[in-house]
């Protein structure tokens, strides 16, 4: 049980810290194109998807799904989806 309390004491400050950090994040993602982010992020788990695999509306839905599953930021997701929509 001592281990469990230690775990809780570790996770609580982590959660609070992440909330604070997430509200003031900075990034160099702004310098990357959607094509570059598509090439770098999708391939970390699976082959890069073909833009023609889905239509514009479907890419919006898949983008939201992958944003959560793959821990993507809003900016990364938006750029990737815009690239896929422009190239399909």
């Amino acid at each position, binding site marked *: 049980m001592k*281990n*469990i309390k230690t775990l809780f004491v570790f*996770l609580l400050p982590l959660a609070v810290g992440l909330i604070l950090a997430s509200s003031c994040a900075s990034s160099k993602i702004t310098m990357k194109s959607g094509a570059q982010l598509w090439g770098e992020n999708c391939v970390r788990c699976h082959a890069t998807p073909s833009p023609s695999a889905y239509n514009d*509306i479907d890419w*919006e839905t898949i983008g939201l*799904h992958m944003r*959560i599953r793959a821990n993507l930021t809003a900016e990364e997701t938006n750029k990737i989806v815009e690239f896929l929509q422009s190239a399909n």
Partner: protein
Amino acid sequence: MKKILITTLVLVLVITYSYAQDTPAPEPFTPSKTQFMVRGYAHAGLNYKKTGDEVESTFVGTTFNPLFIFKHGDRLLFESELAFSFEDGQLDIGFEYANMSYLINDYMTIRMGKMLLPFGTFIERLHPSWVNKFANAPLGFGHGGIAPASGIGVEMRGAIPVGSMKILYSVYATNGPVLNTGMDAEGNFDEPDEAGQLMFNNFEDNNNKKGYGGRLGILPFANSSVEIGGSIYGGAVGDRGSSYGNIGAMLYAVDFSFVRQVSAVRGIVDVKAQYNLSNVDQATYIEPADDPLDPDEAYTFENSSNAYFAQASYRPTMAGNDVMKNFEVAYRYSAFNAPEGAEWEQQSTQWSVALNYYMNWRTLFKLSYQSTSQVGGHGVPEGETVQTDGIFVHWALGF
């Protein structure tokens, strides 16, 4: 005659013009805020296994995992995955996950329900058959394994860019794992050979004490080619009010990933690894006597297990030949060490080599050879090493 023709022409023009005025021009299509999709994956294939003189050759499949995605506006998502398979002459339906997510801000999402747990990366990211480069999961995952697949609870997750780096995070609370004591609630023996194992499908909290966990991943380079992660998950695991009420467990995992198209070798190099460690508080379990006239025997053991895998693959995506660039070679080594003194004590090692061909980005043929060496565990005589070699031909498809 000429007057009639001119009059008719004028009438036609007037009628056509009037009709055009009454018919509004079509408006551009505007998609609704609510969208629904069915995605998922499936696989089928042939398994050939040889253990000593015993040979097993069978077609397997089709395992079919539909994924239902409901997008409610720009911030709200519900998704659920089922797993259909055919086992022992019956259709088996697995409930993989079902959860709802809300995007709090650009870097944070909260979700609730049954979800895949980010304990390492294999389960959450790599286990679907069209993503997994091999025919099965590494040792230590799945039934009897030590890595949790899913949990019911609430999670906060997201990513934070820090300069050229990126930090991925997840913290969650669930009903927590359950200790298999080898007995049911009435005190009757139930899977006594698995006493001391953890079960992760805790649909109702068995002790009112939540399990807490999280994962922190760091992508240190701007090109996101490398990811290093650490996971932790623990809580009380014994049933409330039982003699196991104070038994707790702590699980740890570290994972590594490198994926990059390397010009020098004209292709994508993909290296992944994960190490899992499970520590469960020591407890006393009961072994049923072989002879009903003999008394049952109490025993205990240091309940610590570990499992790990490392895999590497190469796909010549920059090859000039269109066929060659769709091939991939992959190698994986994995091991599972269950605690000494447990009924499920075992030391297993496994290596696999695969040759895959991608028909497209989400459809591949997998041909793999696998060799497993196991000491201890179910069906293995004490002190003996059982060697199983297998060839797997699988066709996996994501959709």
